[in-house]
């Protein structure tokens, strides 16, 4: 793979129309990529093309437009599947990571029995906690958690896995602490204990090469909009033999082969899990996003993210009265840094940064229990993508001094 230089990365900014916007008469500095990334014109054009040239419903259409839409839709399926090295039968389109995890929880938990355990970590996003938690309550299952230390690293040596553990579900990268978890190792532990292994890849798939065969995970969930694609579409990967045994999550059109008044034969994979007219435009946009990422190369994106994170850790550490959460080493993190200015609420910090055109996120980042564990009400989070530059991070650091000035 060719290594892309920093100047070439910066050139890519031209593909993103929004990045030339001005906010409060300042240059937009977009550092909220863990929430959602910006979209290149290639993705926007692919969606517009569908609506202007071949908008039609997919599957079973016998006219030209439907044929074209079906080809493009299935092509998108294949592209996304290939992106994580899965077979296209094993890749289900969903609304996003949240729906992928709900699909799993609903589909898997009905087969568990009272007293069975689900193992999560103390750093999960609400989307990888609440579905399991609520169904566990209903089916009288127990939730257990792998603990984190003060730097946001999992304590794997002391994990509560046992022969009652049926499912282990873990974030690959924490959206608040930034920690990259050793999912391969956790997967081995899960499988040694005959538990299914689920990976929440919302924050990892956009930022590093992720290969489901190499990870040997049973399921992987991720979202398009965090990797240049549109909102409202994401994916769930599952091993074929597992998906075949599982119950559908939604019932209706497109997920069937044959319907009688009193019984239904379900469609083949992956359609069995995609009831109703799918998000066709979203899928096509997702496919275009994957094309764009492949063109840059995920290894390049990962390396560039690490460079930016190293730079951010260094620059933010120089800001007085600022504390950073999560792993101390940049190479144990995804490209994001959560921090607080001492005695200034993250909401105030975030608001004041907005005056300078800087878009960051302030709040609990959908990780309330983790916040509580660390005795925080929230944090400000700067998160990066390949179109960000070291200059933008320098600007963030110098602007934080101005924020402190307001509270003097």
């Amino acid at each position: 793979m060719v290594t892309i230089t920093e100047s070439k990365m910066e050139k890519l900014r031209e593909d993103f129309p929004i990045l030339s916007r001005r906010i409060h008469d300042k240059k937009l500095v977009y550092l909220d990529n863990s929430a959602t990334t910006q979209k290149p014109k290639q993705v926007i054009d692919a969606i517009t093309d569908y609506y202007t040239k071949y908008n039609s419903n997919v599957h079973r259409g016998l006219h030209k437009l439907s044929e074209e839409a079906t080809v493009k839709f299935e092509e998108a399926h294949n592209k996304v599947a290939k992106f994580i090295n899965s077979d296209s039968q094993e890749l289900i389109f969903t609304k996003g990571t949240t729906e992928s995890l709900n699909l799993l929880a609903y589909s898997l938990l009905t087969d568990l029995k009272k007293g069975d355990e689900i193992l999560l970590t103390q750093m999960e996003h609400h989307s990888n906690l609440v579905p399991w938690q609520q169904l566990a309550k209903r089916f009288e299952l127990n939730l257990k958690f792998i603990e984190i230390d003060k730097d946001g690293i999992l304590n794997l040596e002391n994990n509560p896995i046992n022969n009652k553990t049926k499912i282990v579900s873990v974030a690959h990268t924490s959206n608040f602490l930034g920690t990259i978890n050793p999912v391969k190792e956790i997967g081995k532990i899960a499988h040694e204990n005959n538990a299914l292994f689920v990976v929440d890849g919302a924050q990892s798939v956009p930022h590093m090469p992720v290969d489901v065969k190499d990870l040997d995970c049973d399921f992987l969930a991720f979202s398009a909009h965090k990797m240049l694609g549109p909102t409202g579409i994401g994916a769930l990967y599952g091993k074929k033999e597992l998906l075949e045994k599982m119950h559908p999550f939604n019932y209706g059109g497109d997920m069937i082969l044959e319907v009688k008044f009193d019984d239904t034969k379900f469609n083949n994979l992956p359609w069995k899990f995609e009831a109703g007219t799918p998000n066709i435009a979203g899928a096509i946009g997702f496919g275009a996003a994957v094309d764009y990422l492949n063109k840059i190369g995920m290894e390049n994106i990962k390396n560039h993210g690490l460079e930016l994170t190293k730079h951010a850790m260094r620059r933010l550490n120089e800001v007085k009265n600022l504390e950073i959460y999560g792993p101390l080493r940049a190479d144990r993190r995804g490209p994001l840094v959560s921090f607080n200015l001492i005695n200034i609420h993250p909401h105030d910090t975030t608001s004041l940064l907005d005056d300078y055109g800087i878009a960051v996120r302030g709040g609990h980042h959908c990780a309330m229990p983790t916040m509580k564990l660390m005795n925080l009400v929230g944090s400000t989070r700067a998160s990066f993508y390949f179109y960000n530059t070291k200059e933008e991070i320098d600007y963030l650091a110098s602007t934080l001094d101005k924020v402190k000035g307001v509270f003097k």
Partner: protein
Amino acid sequence: MNEFMNQKMYMEHILDLYKNPLNFGILDNADFKERCFNPSCGDEVEIQVKLKDDKVDDVKFIGRGCAISVAAASLLTENIKGKLLNDINNLTREDMMELVGIEVGPARVKCITCSLVSLRDGIRSYLEGKNVRS
């Protein structure tokens, strides 16, 4: 001109109230108390009210929040002393903006109203007889 529109919210009296809030602390023998949590940013305010003849005799709040929510809670608690519960119930978000002396956009409405929401919830529960003397 939109320049520094957020910074304009951080007026001196708001920053002063953030650093030295009014009526901050625990009230012994409160007749009711209610907590409000603003999940969008983590503001947390608990208001405790002591009544005398259906009027607010004393009020305190505890919690953690942004400058706007802490200043708002300070000014609200100060404002309601001696008032009838029914009058307090009629306070609106516009009243809060007037009380605090700033206009806030949709992103900060929950900050400025967090204390009011907890107060109104507390009054409702109290009047319904659910909230027993602590």
